[in-house]
């Protein structure tokens, strides 16, 4: 007579063997991996900085050639900037003029967020996977300590998304990933000039029927460089010195202008 736990283990083993046998012989279990790279891992904000582009490219690696069974393969590329609290204010007409009245603090909102998918978003990744991996924008925004509720709350959250989408900081691009021959893929992202400094994360998710099969992660370091770096640091760390420098520059410019035009008039 076999004991309970042992019988369960035997049953499980049998089920596993059955499952493996049920897999059709002509369709091997998809052992697929994603290999990806970024064209730059370091972005320097210098004096001439006017935004930049990030090119994400890669391949789906498997031990066979792509076939018709690969039609349900999808690629999601996600780039997210550092998160920070955001203050949202809403204007209201008060005594005839428009004044900032209601205010909400969004606890954390990514400073930059771009999602590109190879098909429509939920055709590429299932709701469950989206929830688990927190891919879509609504999962990236954290809004816990909300004072308002219901419609007002939604309106404030929507405002963050709308305003940041308008300024190019939030990008949602269905069909933004180009897949070539079921194997190669690439996506292009525009980072506007007003991005903030920090460590950005890049993620590539390979999905099959909406389920994530493999993932790739990388980081992008965005930092001010050169004169911009120096001036910014000085203004924060040695504010008094920075102020004195600003005045000296202005006085010198004023003196130079005055002398130059006196000389020109002569």
């Amino acid at each position, binding site marked *: 007579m076999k004991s309970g736990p042992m019988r369960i283990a035997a049953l499980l083993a049998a089920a596993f063997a059955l499952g493996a046998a049920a897999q059709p012989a002509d369709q091997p279990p998809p052992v697929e991996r994603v290999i990806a790279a970024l064209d730059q891992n370091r972005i320097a*904000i*210098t*004096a*001439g*900085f*006017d*935004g930049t582009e990030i090119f994400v490219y890669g391949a789906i690696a498997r031990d066979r050639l792509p076939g018709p069974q690969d039609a349900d393969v999808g690629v999601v590329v996600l780039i997210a900037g550092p998160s*920070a*609290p*955001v*203050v*949202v*204010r*809403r*204007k*209201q*007409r008060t005594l*005839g*003029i*428009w*004044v*900032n009245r209601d*205010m909400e*603090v969004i606890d954390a909102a990514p400073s930059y967020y771009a999602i590109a998918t190879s098909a429509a978003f939920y055709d590429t990744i299932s709701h469950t996977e989206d929830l688990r991996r927190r891919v879509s924008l609504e999962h990236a925004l954290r809004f816990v300590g909300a004072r308002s509720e219901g419609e007002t709350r939604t*309106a*404030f959250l929507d*405002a*963050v998304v*709308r*305003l*940041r989408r308008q300024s190019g900081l939030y990008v949602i691009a269905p069909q933004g990933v180009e897949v070539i021959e079921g194997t190669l893929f690439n996506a292009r992202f525009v980072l506007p*000039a*007003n991005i*903030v400094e920090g460590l950005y994360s890049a993620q590539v998710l390979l999905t099959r029927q909406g389920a994530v099969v493999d993932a790739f992660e990388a980081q992008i370091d965005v930092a*001010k460089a050169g*004169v*911009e*770096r120096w*001036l*910014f640091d000085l*203004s*924060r760390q040695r*504010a*008094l010195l*920075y*102020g*004195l*420098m*600003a*005045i000296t*520059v*202005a*006085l010198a*410019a*004023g*003196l130079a*202008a*005055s002398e130059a*035009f006196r000389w020109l008039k002569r």
Partner: protein
Amino acid sequence: MQIYLPIAEMSVNALLLLGLGGAIGVLSGLFGVGGGFLLTPLLIFIGIPPAVAVASQANQIVASSFSGVLAHWRRKTVDLKMGLVLLAGGLVGSYFGVWLFALVRALGQVELMVSLCYVVFLGIVGGLMMVESVRTLRKRRRGAPAAVRRGHTWAHRLPMKIRFRESKLYISAIPPLVIGLFVGVLAAIMGVGGGFVMIPAMIYLLGMPTSVVIGTSLFQITLLAGFTTLLHAQQNQTVDVVLAVLLIVGGVIGAQFGAQLGAKLRGEQLRFLLAALVLVVCAKLAFDLVATPDELFSLSRPGQ
């Protein structure tokens, strides 16, 4: 040609800023005003955060008024003592103004405060100038001589009298101190030199001769704007040197063209034009306060 502003943390067209600085320079050369009252709204309009616009503007005013005061110094049209009394009041006012600015910024009402101040002061000054210049223009047409405004004012009856030799005045120090204080607050919260308030006040309230008014006010403005810059840099960290330098370069070149253009026009006509310009800016700002904005929401970082 794009250039990245390190403190404003945005990229702007350098030529646009040079052009703006130049255009304001032409006006300042033409009318003898700083032009800050026009530049700050324009900077905000092109997307510079108001706090950075106001603080960097103060830095730009140091350069433009310093080059002006040097010219007046050579002509000996600066009343040093009067300038220092005005400055004493101004420093206190500026300190209070920067503190007020930081407070209002935390409340998220900087834009409102700046706009309201502009509408009120541009409205008053522009209106008064308009009335005055129309009256003079009419009188001239009738052939009557322009009114000479001198003599005793209420400023003579207060205590703490000081003799201001260059201004040919023997008056109490209290009115100039109060005027300086008031201008100091304005300079800090509006990013202006305050000449457009101080010059009328010096002429009409203190009774100073017109010859020393501009030099003295420039002297006070240079030092006051320097102090304001320092305070903004220290307390709000909003002075963008790159922005200021672009405006300065455009401004000094523009001012020379303005001065040459100004020599071809008559005083009353100039004042009439300036009054019209001030009133137009005032009307535009007032309209923006009342008109329903396209976007009711705005985002900012906490503490800004």
